[in-house]
């Protein structure tokens, strides 16, 4: 790996690891904790978490890592045959599909529906439970994809 590619792979591996950890927090204890609260308390807490998570720092980490993944995939496609290209390609694709793709296709639509839910509404308990179950299941996928991407890119740094 050239110096630039090494740096890009390193930054991407760190980004994937950090994002894996963010979603791991939700899978491991944040969602189980919110599930234990009253329906109103849980809905209100998750609604404001979703609104306030859209910070420049987090968006840069989440989508900046996606951008460097795209760059790495482009490099791997044009340099096929060099040593760590398969690792870089699979790692970058895992993050883009399993983390960014799942976020856009599954978690964000669920969040949008939750945003319209009134915490004291009549059917709020059932809809909250459905939200937590589905959101957490897709979140497990995001953790697995980002962690696997971080692992593959770390191995690519080692063998490249």
């Amino acid at each position, binding site marked *: 790996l050239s110096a630039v590619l090494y740096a890009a792979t390193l930054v991407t591996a760190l980004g994937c690891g*950090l994002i*894996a950890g963010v979603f791991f927090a939700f899978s*491991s204890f944040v969602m189980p904790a*919110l599930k*234990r*609260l009253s329906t109103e308390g849980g809905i*209100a807490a998750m609604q*404001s978490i979703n609104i306030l998570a859209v910070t420049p720092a987090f968006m840069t980490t989440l989508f900046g890592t996606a951008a460097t993944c795209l760059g790495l995939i482009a490099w791997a496609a044009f340099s096929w045959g060099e040593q760590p290209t398969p690792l870089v390609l699979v790692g970058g694709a895992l993050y883009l599909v399993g983390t960014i793709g799942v976020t856009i296709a599954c978690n964000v639509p669920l969040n949008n529906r939750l945003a319209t839910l009134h915490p004291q509404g009549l059917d709020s308990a059932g809809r909250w439970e459905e939200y937590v179950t589905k959101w957490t299941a897709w979140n497990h996928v995001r953790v697995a994809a980002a*962690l696997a991407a971080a692992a593959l890119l770390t191995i690519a740094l080692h063998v490249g």
Partner: protein
Amino acid sequence: MSQIPIEATSHKPPRPPALGSAVRALTLAVATLTTGLVAGVFYAYAISVNLGLAEQPDAGYVAAMQAINERIQNPVFFLVFFGAVLSLFAALAAHSPRPRSGGFWLVMLACSLYIGGGFLLTVFVNVPLNEQLARVGACLLHGGRGTR
């Protein structure tokens, strides 16, 4: 005289270098991934969980944070949080036969950063704060029903 060390070492079969290198790589990879995960967990508080809960009324904040502090004590999180310490020590041990190498010093630096700034800070600052919060009477608050 110069033959003595050669004879002394020639009795031992040379250790296969591939094994040491594989152990170094493996321990380092596990340490990298676990410390990365823990960094992300703390980052999650900084960029979303704390910001979101701070917007809640006091009762809601206390109930949610108490539930989080209780639920974080689960086997998977502990595996990662303590596993990071263990794998860092394992990586340090694996690199210790080459104490003058750059790799050894970087692993040493990583150990002190994670154990000092991540692990001990949590144990001596954040956990006591969580224990203080746990004593805030849940019955006085009406945000949750779970803290029993």
